[in-house]
């Protein structure tokens, strides 16, 4: 990670406020990150499917979005080997068992419940971005899938 200048991060969320919190948090974190945001799943997939697109290292995916929801995006991404290097973090208001179960089965790497405190948000995002994904993914199970604070 040291060799890379920037960590590429992407967020797909239809909520403007959430996108704002997200970018604010990263700018306050003072990490070398490049953050791209997309208004919905459709826009995200259009970008990702470009031949010359710079793929994010970590993709934050909201579940409930118009046009193409997070679940559909997850399925498409996991079906395409080109995206294998991307870590996918589900980023949702809901912490319902069904959603957690389903996204785990579909192959997401971590599940984050959107915090209701800005400082908590900052901590979560920094934790997720600096996570050793290789280590995390190899020991992934249903219990550590949901990120607890």
């Amino acid at each position, binding site marked *: 990670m040291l060799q890379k200048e920037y960590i590429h991060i992407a967020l797909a969320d239809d909520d403007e*406020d959430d996108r704002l919190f997200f970018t*604010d948090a990263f700018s306050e974190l003072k990490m070398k990150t490049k953050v791209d945001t997309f208004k919905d799943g459709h826009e995200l997939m259009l970008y990702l499917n470009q031949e010359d697109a710079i793929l994010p290292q970590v993709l934050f995916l909201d579940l409930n979005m118009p046009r193409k929801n997070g679940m559909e995006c997850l399925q498409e991404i996991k079906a395409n080997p080109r995206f294998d290097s991307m870590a996918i973090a589900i980023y949702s*208001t*809901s912490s*319902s068992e069904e959603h957690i179960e389903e996204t785990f089965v579909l192959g997401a790497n971590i599940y984050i419940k*959107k*915090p*209701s405190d*800005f*400082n908590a948000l900052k901590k979560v995002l920094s934790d997720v971005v600096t996570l050793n994904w290789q280590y995390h993914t190899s020991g992934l199970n249903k219990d550590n899938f949901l990120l607890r604070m």
Partner: protein
Amino acid sequence: MIFKKRFYNSPLFLVITFVVSVAMMFFISGITFKHISSLNKTREAVLHSYEVTLEIEKLFTSVKDLEIERRNFLLTGDNNLVEKLNKSKLGIVKSINSINDLVVDNKIQTDHIVKIRHLCTSKFAIVNKAIIDVEKFKKDRELLRNNLLQGKLIMDSIQIHVDQMIALEDQLLKKRHEADQEIQSYTPLFIYLTLLVTLTLIVLSFIGFIKSYQSLKSTHEQLLLSNESNRLGEFIGNYGNWSCNLDKNEWYFSANLYTILGVDPNFVKPNFENLLHYIHPDDKERVKEVVAEYQNKTSIPDITYRIVTPDRTVKHVRSAGKMITTETGSRLIVGSTIDVTQDHLKNDELEQQNRELENSNRELSAFNYVASHDLQEPLRKIQTFISRLEDKEKDELSENGLQYLDRIKVAAGRMRALIDDLLQFSRANKSEQVFELTDLNVLMENALSELNQAVEEKQATLDITPLPKLSVIPFQIQQLFINIIGNSLKYAKTDTPPVITITSEIVKKLNPVKNTTETFHRLVFKDNGIGFEPEFNTKVFELFNRLHSREEYSGTGIGLAICKKIVENHKGSIQAHGILNEGVEIEILLPV
């Protein structure tokens, strides 16, 4: 004894006594007939003997008369006597003939009579000689004396035969008398004894008959009674009975069955074709199939179908039947048909209401979930913005502004707690959770680790006995433990550190509905907190019900309602026993 009594009353006994009595009667009549005919024979024999004796004596008298007349004739020579002599001769021949006829069966008497006839013939020869030689005898005295002597000798011979014959007849008579006497001596006793036995038998069979009659009468009365109560039962229970003799194809419908069919018993003959006439067209084939099965099945399935009465009313009825074979070997189907229209309608109505209730329940819980879930989103934003304001704009705000911000924060926090609890409640409502065999000790550990901070803060002591392994919905039971222990910690006295004891034991309880004993795990959570008055024992489980003001104790009034829901999901029960200022005991029964 019982056997005796039963035999005594049985029809077989009656038949036997009757047959024996009749046989006895025949026997007695036979004996009597035989006896009378024997008496008759004796009488005839006596008469015969007398007749024979009489005839013999008559003959002898005639012979004597002839001798006297002959002598007279010889003495007087009176020719008038010749005619008399001839007449006497004729009389003697006649007498001999009639005696011969009488004694034709008796060889000895016949021999005697033959000899007598012979002697008489000789006698007649002498008489004839006397008539011819009467003049010669007058001259020759010697000749006369010879003739007389000859006559006397013949007379003597006849006398001897006659005496013998009479003696023989006497003897015969005597013998008959003796034989008769013998029969007469034992017959009456025998008849009397037989008669006595017969009489006894008849009396016995009469008693048996009376008893049978009485039992028949009481059975008949019982039958009448049960018939009447059956009719009443049919009327009250709205059902009708029917039966069918399979071999003769004879049907019987009870009065109330006609009432159910809505027809007059006088105008409709009880048979299947007529019944079919009232069955709903859509159900006819089905009923026919079932009835066809009657022919070769002993157990007949229930069938529910519709009938249409003459006034076009549709009724729902259910029929059940059973085949029985009578003692005489004929096969009968007996059955009942019950009018279930009311049940049917009620059932329909209930089903409809149930569906509506289920729908509204589903809608309600969906609404609850959606509302609480969707409310989270804006609330989270509000809270995040509050934290942004606190971080960035703190210095720009006045004293008042900071105070307002604080109030907004508290209110938002409360709303967060409410929404979280409501979400939990709505999740406890979902019934499709999976039961797993779980060690409750593990769930308790998890619960305590979640409450760790509060336990430490309050310096609480927990005394927990080992818990069982049960088939439960794990996360719900864990939530249950968190809520109950959380309450104990929250409502602890300010001056006393909380002591919470949790015990588990197996108890048996009587189920009053099924009248069976059922085994439960009884978990008791006891604390030494502020408690509450016993009158709130049930109220604490109601949704949004709080016993304290928000300022005193935070809370949403949902926690125990969730507990109740969870325990109910596990088919258990939960009870609270509060004592003000002493603590609360929560008792949970979970089925094994």
